[in-house]
């Protein structure tokens, strides 16, 4: 059963008046609207949703990273309500899907956005509230570059430790040192030829 987002929104506004929240509408047919939460109050919001007896969102099912290089695109996909902060340049976003196993309610979608995609990519970790975020936040750090403050063991999980760069970002350039490709043609063939003159044949 999908949660009553406006009711939860007003409840959060009442319980955590210092929190910066916005209700974002989902323009598609799925009807899954989301709550935009400022990173500073993210842990407080999660703690409240987890501890509150009548909401009881105890299962953090999914933590996803999204790379928004262009804020105009975000505005199209998740329309901001009036009063939400305008983004400066692009940003990285973390999306949380919460479920309540006892009330059989879900998914409650929370979003937290970083300031930009370069240096200010810090978002607080919710591992202290939901242990299931442990590996998923490591994966977002690995693939997107979001730094989760307060995570007990933030290191790469899917790529090897010495890897540089973050593959899931939209501007990631794959390395061109392909191994021999059987059907090279066009651009792939040009790249392969460059490497074969440089390296010695064995």
């Amino acid at each position, binding site marked *: 059963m999908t949660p009553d987002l406006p009711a939860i929104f007003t409840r959060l506004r009442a319980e955590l008046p210092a929190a910066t929240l916005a209700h974002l509408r989902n323009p598609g047919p799925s009807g899954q609207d989301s709550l935009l939460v400022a990173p500073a109050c993210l842990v407080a919001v999660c703690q409240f949703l987890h501890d509150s007896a009548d909401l009881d969102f105890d299962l953090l099912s999914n933590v996803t990273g999204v790379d928004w290089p262009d804020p105009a695109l975000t505005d199209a996909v998740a329309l901001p309500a009036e009063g939400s902060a305008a983004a400066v340049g692009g940003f990285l976003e973390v999306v949380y899907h919460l479920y309540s196993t006892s009330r059989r309610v879900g998914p409650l979608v929370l979003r937290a956005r970083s300031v930009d995609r370069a240096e200010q990519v810090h978002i607080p970790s919710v591992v202290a*509230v939901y*242990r299931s975020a442990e590996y998923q936040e490591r994966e977002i750090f690995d693939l997107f570059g979001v730094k989760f403050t307060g995570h*007990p063991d933030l290191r790469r999980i899917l790529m090897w430790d010495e890897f540089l760069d973050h593959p899931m970002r939209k501007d990631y350039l794959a390395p061109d040192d392909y191994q021999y490709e*059987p*059907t090279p*043609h066009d651009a792939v063939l040009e790249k392969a030829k460059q490497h074969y003159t440089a390296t010695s044949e064995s």
Partner: protein
Amino acid sequence: MSLVLNKSMEHPATSSRAATPPPAAAWTLPGIGLLKGLAVTATNMIQSYYRKDRMTTVQYPEERATISPNFRNFPFLAYDGADAMAGLRCTACLICENECPPKCIYIVLDRDENGKSLKRPKVFDIDVSVCMNCGICAEVCPFDSIYMDGEYELSTTDRFEGLLFNKQRLARSTDYHAQLRPLEAAEVAARRKADEDKKLAAQAAKEAKAKADKAAKEQAAAQESELS
């Protein structure tokens, strides 16, 4: 450097370790349970000597296992008539190349000296070492020209050129298609014939109308000249 057992995760909701692990189940002498299990394995072993459904080994290559007629392996290009290259149905529309998930299809459109498209491929390569046999190319083709073959004995000693199939290697006649997948081929043939008939009927209707119009115009002109 000293190591302490996990001190992190002290939050009561997340601390998931018991203080000490509970004792393992008491060891009991293996008895009835084990004997029942041994009876099952013994039965299986004895039955494997005489039950036909337990003898699943097929003496390949003298025998071959029966394979479902719907089995799909690598694609082939269909051609009508006797000449493979002239009868290829492919128009090099590039839809299969764009939809192919691992991008194993490489097509070059054939153009004449003015650059106008000749609606046939000059190059149609499929790299079967990359092809994942998904069948999406066959599904999206709008011209009934690419289908999934069922051939699987394709080993070759040349790992690069031997596994790059060009359009000559890929071409198979529609008779082959009808033999391989009779239901699908029959349905395609029926649909193509219906489309062809509809086109001919529309053509005939257009010609008849043009003739009728011409006859009416001539009659009107004749009447005019009579009056004048």
